[in-house]
Every structure is written in C-alpha cells, then in structure tokens.
C-alpha cells in the first residue's frame, strides 16, 4: 500500500521557534506538495517540488521555506513560527505520468503558542 508519512501528528511550538515538518513518500513520486488546511479556506498550497532540489512557491509561501534533498523526502520549514501559522499541514505526492491524483499524508496539526 502506497504511503505518504508525516513525522508528527501533533506539534506545539512557541512563537519564534524554527519548526521542521517532515514528509516521506515510498512511491517514487516526482512531485511533492505542502498544503495548509484551515476551516472555510480549504486547501491552500504553500510550496511544491517537481524534482529533487527543485521547488516552486504556491499561493501562500510567506513565512515558509522547503527542502528536498532526496526524492522521497520533502520538508517544510517555518523559519520563525507565529501564531497565525497554527493550522493543519498536509503533505502530498503525485506522479506526472499517472492520472491518479495526489496521495496525502494524515496531516500534522501545528499549534503555535
């Protein structure tokens, strides 16, 4: 069974901390994505990567950065966490050669206090 694994289900961090959210996929997918999900706002794309060391900004990249050093791993970094970054973060992966859509992880609920 294909999987996208996010390292933490729940995280509580303090304002100003540097936060790393990790995502690993075992499907050899080229594309990986980070979304945040907030009530009433749906899924908003933060960053995506279509190859190792390649990245593109999504719709709401401010306050975030990403790293993709290996094909299977895509990290989201909050350089200096703020309370407005409290949210559910979802990682997803996909292959550009298939019409199977995204496979999502179970999400990380981040609370910044």
């Amino acid at each position, binding site marked *: 069974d294909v999987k996208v694994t996010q390292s933490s289900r729940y995280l509580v961090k303090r304002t100003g901390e540097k936060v790393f959210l990790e995502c690993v996929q075992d499907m050899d997918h080229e594309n990986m994505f980070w979304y945040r999900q907030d009530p009433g706002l749906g899924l908003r794309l933060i960053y*995506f990567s279509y190859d190792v060391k390649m990245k593109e900004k999504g*719709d709401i990249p401010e306050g975030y950065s990403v790293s993709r050093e290996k094909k299977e791993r895509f990290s989201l970094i909050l350089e200096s966490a703020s309370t407005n970054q409290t949210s559910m973060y979802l990682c997803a992966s996909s292959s550009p050669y298939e019409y199977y859509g995204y496979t999502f992880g179970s999400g990380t609920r981040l609370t910044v206090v």
Partner: protein
Amino acid sequence: QQQVKQSPQSLIVQKGGIPIINCAYENTAFDYFPWYQQFPGKGPALLIAIRPDVSEKKEGRFTISFNKSAKQFSLHIMDSQPGDSATYFCAARPSGSGGSNYKLTFGKGTLLTVNP
C-alpha cells in the same frame, strides 16, 4: 489565478438521500477533475475522477456528472449512509506538461453530514 468554486459549503441529508455537490471552473485548460474525501483527523483521499471527454462516471454509489460547455461538474452520492459523512473537495488539473501543470486547484470543500 485559476479557481474552482465549490458549493454548498455544508450539507445535511438523511440516510438514503442523494447529496449533490457542485463545482464550477473558470478556465478551459483543465484536463482532469478528481474528487477527494476527507474524514476527521485524516488526509484527503482520492474518491473518483473524470476526464473532460466523458459526461458521467460511476463508481459504486458515487457518480460524477460533467458539463464541459457549462464548465461545471458535480458529485452525487446515491443511497447516502452515515459513514459517508466527511468533507468533500473537488479539484482540477491544468492540461499540458511542466512543473506548474502538476498542481491541482482545489475547491474550498463541502462538509457533508448524513443523519441516521
């Protein structure tokens, strides 16, 4: 920015009812329209998808209807069950190739509640 508009935001039906969720898109350069189902505490999961060269697709109790000329597509759930209670997202993918064309554009989601 290309958009997909989804309605309603929430929907309550009785068991056995047929909830219908609608989505409309603004740009004709989409070539793949998936629907995702998300249960509380889980990530969204692909439910069913359609290409624009067909007008309808059925998988079990779930049906997508697609109207290319109106740029609209909808999800129907036949004989709905309490276990179908979830958030549903429609999405669309741009046609063509290249990094930016791998992104899905999502609707804002519909919270469906099916009462026993």
